[in-house]
């Protein structure tokens, strides 16, 4: 047992503060105020809003793997798709109760990561990118061929999702869906936040920075990465499950590379390894894409490309990096977050 003497107190406080923590700040308040406010201010856009919330959740799951753990995966979409199919399958064959459906979606995706992890995480860099890409293409092929389970090209549909907690019926205006997705996102965010602040969270950041050294600290880095990969996949699976439940349809398009690519772009826009990068980035990406496509259905991808180029040029650390810069101007002693 150690006792802290009175004279040591300022020093101990200094050491304590040297450990970064994801702190509650104005961004927290702002994000949740905007999310709840949107429900009342733009009630006709709740379908888009729900999509954005789900994609924030999916991007958050990617940030855990890529931003915190340095697992440069391009196969995150596989977990999203698998989670979606599992939740739809559950609704079709077992029960339309939504919460259990999400648990099944997250569970199946997490299980897949637990099986694939030991193989995938043996590699790093380009090899890992190619392997994760290959695995997700294989799953896509499987979804097309295994018609009896996945419905083939048509996907799974025609299931009924029961009210949330038996109380809140899903409606065509996405009112329930929006709050349902928001609640799930908030829960996932709290989990993510606890994990990144924990000793485990610091350890995976250490592995991202320098795996060899981490190993020589006696840390079993493969196991830590498998743990992170599984958590991240489960979260992606929950996002897929949400999509299946609120849209009433899950198709092979959820298993394409595009899903992973969009989330990666969202993180580039928002900032890696920051949690809130996923919020800002995915919101910007999906709202911008939606508006650009509505205004000009033929050239919106061009607009997206220009946005991306400008973002990389002027905010290399994403919107969160930009926020840090502005904050540091006010307070030169402030450090950037985790």
């Amino acid at each position, binding site marked *: 047992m150690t006792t802290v003497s009175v004279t040591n107190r300022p020093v101990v406080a200094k050491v304590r*503060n040297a450990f970064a*923590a994801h702190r509650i700040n104005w961004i927290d308040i702002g994000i949740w105020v905007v999310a709840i406010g949107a429900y009342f201010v733009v009630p006709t856009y709740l379908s888009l809003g729900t999509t954005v919330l789900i994609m924030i959740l999916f991007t958050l799951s990617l940030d855990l793997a890529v931003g915190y753990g340095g697992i440069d995966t391009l196969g995150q979409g596989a977990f999203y798709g698998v989670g979606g199919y599992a939740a739809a399958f559950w609704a079709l064959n077992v029960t339309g109760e939504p919460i259990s459906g999400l648990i099944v979606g997250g569970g199946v995706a997490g299980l897949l990561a637990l099986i694939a992890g030991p193989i995938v995480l043996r590699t790093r860099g380009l090899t890992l990118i190619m392997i994760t890409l290959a695995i997700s293409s294989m799953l896509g092929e499987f979804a097309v061929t295994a018609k009896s389970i996945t419905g083939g090209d048509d996907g799974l549909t025609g299931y009924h999702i029961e009210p949330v907690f038996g109380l809140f019926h899903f409606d065509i205006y996405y009112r329930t869906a929006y709050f349902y997705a928001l609640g799930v996102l908030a829960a996932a965010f709290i989990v993510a936040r606890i*994990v990144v602040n*924990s000793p485990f969270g*610091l350890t995976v950041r250490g592995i991202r920075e320098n795996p060899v050294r981490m190993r020589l*600290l*006696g*840390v079993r880095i493969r*196991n830590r990465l498998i743990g992170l990969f599984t958590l991240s996949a489960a979260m992606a699976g929950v996002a897929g499950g949400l999509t299946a439940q609120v849209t009433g349809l899950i198709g092979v398009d959820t298993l394409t590379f595009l899903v992973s690519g969009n989330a990666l772009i969202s993180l580039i826009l928002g900032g890696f390894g920051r949690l809130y990068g996923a919020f800002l980035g995915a919101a910007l990406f999906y709202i911008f894409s939606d508006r650009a496509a509505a205004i000009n259905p033929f050239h919106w991808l061009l607009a997206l490309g220009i946005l991306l180029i400008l973002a990389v040029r002027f905010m290399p650390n994403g919107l969160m990096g930009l926020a840090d810069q502005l904050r540091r101007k006010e307070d030169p002693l402030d450090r950037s977050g985790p």
Partner: protein
Amino acid sequence: MSEAGNTQPALEVSGLCKNFGALPVTQNIDLTLYPGARHALIGPNGAGKTTLVNQITGVLKPDAGAIRLFGTDITHATPERRVALGVVRTFQIISLFLRLTVAENVGLAVAAARSIDAKPWGSLRDDDRVVEGVRELLERLDLLSVAERQLSELGYGQRRLVEIALALALKPKVLLLDEPAAGVSSRDLGMLLEILTRLPSDIAILVIEHDMSLVFRFAHRISVLVGGALLVEGSVDEVRANQQVRDVYLGRRAHV
């Protein structure tokens, strides 16, 4: 310390051999360190010093020979296992966590040593024992003033000290220091030597170093490695006086 501790070697390397292709980098090396040893390993560039350390820590597999720790054979143990048993090293090429703070760097090692690195809740900053452990190490290495800095903001000398702090956090019984003074300015060298001499006296330390003034002041015994083979081993005075050593190695670095 037990009776056996006085007679039993902390680290015993015997008949170790390793080739890189046709290049023999470790040739039948014997090396024994008792608890409390201050042993220097010197030799020209490319002599195989770092390669020897890599075999002792388990990063490289030897082709033949054995490595024992307090009598236990660890020749085939994983690097993680060896760390747990007390074989710890620092790196010639500084190997730390650039985008983490100094305290986080050390905290990672303290957490690993306490086996709480997999705990997915709580925080190191709220763990009094970890914070106290980090504080104590930072104080011992004169790093308290930079605890909150990102490692990337530190100069070379201080990074060397963080390297040593990480190693000490793992509670080593055998500490392998691979060129702790490399890149350290002559201004900081005195401080480094002082910190090295203050290290716990029961740890067996093997130091690889090119700076002879540091070697002569720190070490009690010296092994000279040339072309992968041991040329001579002896006390500081013996090695200094050895004509072969002067010819092969020290002679070239005239300032002995």
